[in-house]
């Protein structure tokens, strides 16, 4: 098991294996996302209360869900960086932070546009929206901190500490709608219960969540490859890859 763990930490091994997976991730991701979006926009029935404005859910929930999952993945990688000093973990954190930032922004933006016709306001300082805004600032802070420190190793550690400190925000986002009074409604999907929407609504939603997940996987791979190439350009395998095109 430890051997596998060490192999996983090898940038060269990762580069080779991710190149093989990436086309599949991208194709299936786009396919699933488009299926979910088209189904949700054109074929799912409208909501009895909100009418058609609820169709924003088919991108709002995937982006909000991914914004939080990406942060949890980053926090796990940060733990690995701090404890095992694995290079690839730090590469992952650096590669996906901008993706997390964009996803969080999209979740907030789509939420605001959805809030206007349903609640009657773009923004309200309730616990859910505020904690989500803090997540946006956390992503921004991680990027800024990384840019501020020149030395690669100290940057990796400082970023890992910040990411781990910020992880307390994730349960706050998740449970804000249950612990406090908020304008935002509780979660439609719960692990233990049936979703509180019919199948013709939650199946397309699930498709777009899965699709965005796979597209994130592709984005993570390609961005990690970029980071690995620029860090390892002195090694022989990178030279061979750049000049001959294979790993």
């Amino acid at each position: 098991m430890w051997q596998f763990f060490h192999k996983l930490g090898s940038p060269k091994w990762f580069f080779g294996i991710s190149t093989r997976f990436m086309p599949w991730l991208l194709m299936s991701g786009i396919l699933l996302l488009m299926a979910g979006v088209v189904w949700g926009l054109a074929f799912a029935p409208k909501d009895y209360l909100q009418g058609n404005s609820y169709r924003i859910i088919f991108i709002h929930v995937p982006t909000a869900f991914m914004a939080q999952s990406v942060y949890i993945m980053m926090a796990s990688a940060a733990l690995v960086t701090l404890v095992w000093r694995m290079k690839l973990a730090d590469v992952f954190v650096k590669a996906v932070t901008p993706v997390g930032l964009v996803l969080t922004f999209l979740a907030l933006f789509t939420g605001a546009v959805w809030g206007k016709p349903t609640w009657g306001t773009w923004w309200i300082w309730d616990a859910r929206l505020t904690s989500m805004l803090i997540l946006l600032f956390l992503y921004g802070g991680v990027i800024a901190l990384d840019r501020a420190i020149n030395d690669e190793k100290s940057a990796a550690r400082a970023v890992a500490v910040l990411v781990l400190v910020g992880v307390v925000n994730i349960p706050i986002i998740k449970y804000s709608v249950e612990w406090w009074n908020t304008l935002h409604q509780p979660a439609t999907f719960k692990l233990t219960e049936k979703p509180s929407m019919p199948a013709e609504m939650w199946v397309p939603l699930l498709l777009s969540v899965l699709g965005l997940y796979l597209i994130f996987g592709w984005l993570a791979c390609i961005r990690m490859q970029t980071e690995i190439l620029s860090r390892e350009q002195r090694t022989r395998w990178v030279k061979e890859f750049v000049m001959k095109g294979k790993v």
Partner: protein
Amino acid sequence: MAFDSFAAFVSMEGHGPYVWACYAVFFVLMIVLMAGSVRSRDATIESCRRRYELQAEKSTVAAAPTTSASFARVNVSQD
């Protein structure tokens, strides 16, 4: 189909601007993110290639006078 006509689909009973604005911003940002990632990977590869070519040129220039030396000097890569 949940709509009777294409016009109904676009207007979404008055919610059209909200729904379409969301989807437009979503797709634009996702495409920018994806295209940007591909481009920065290509740019990194290109800058590496230029670096290696520059190094190769330098080493051949440095190696050129030594060819006139009579001693067998073998260029072995040290990395």
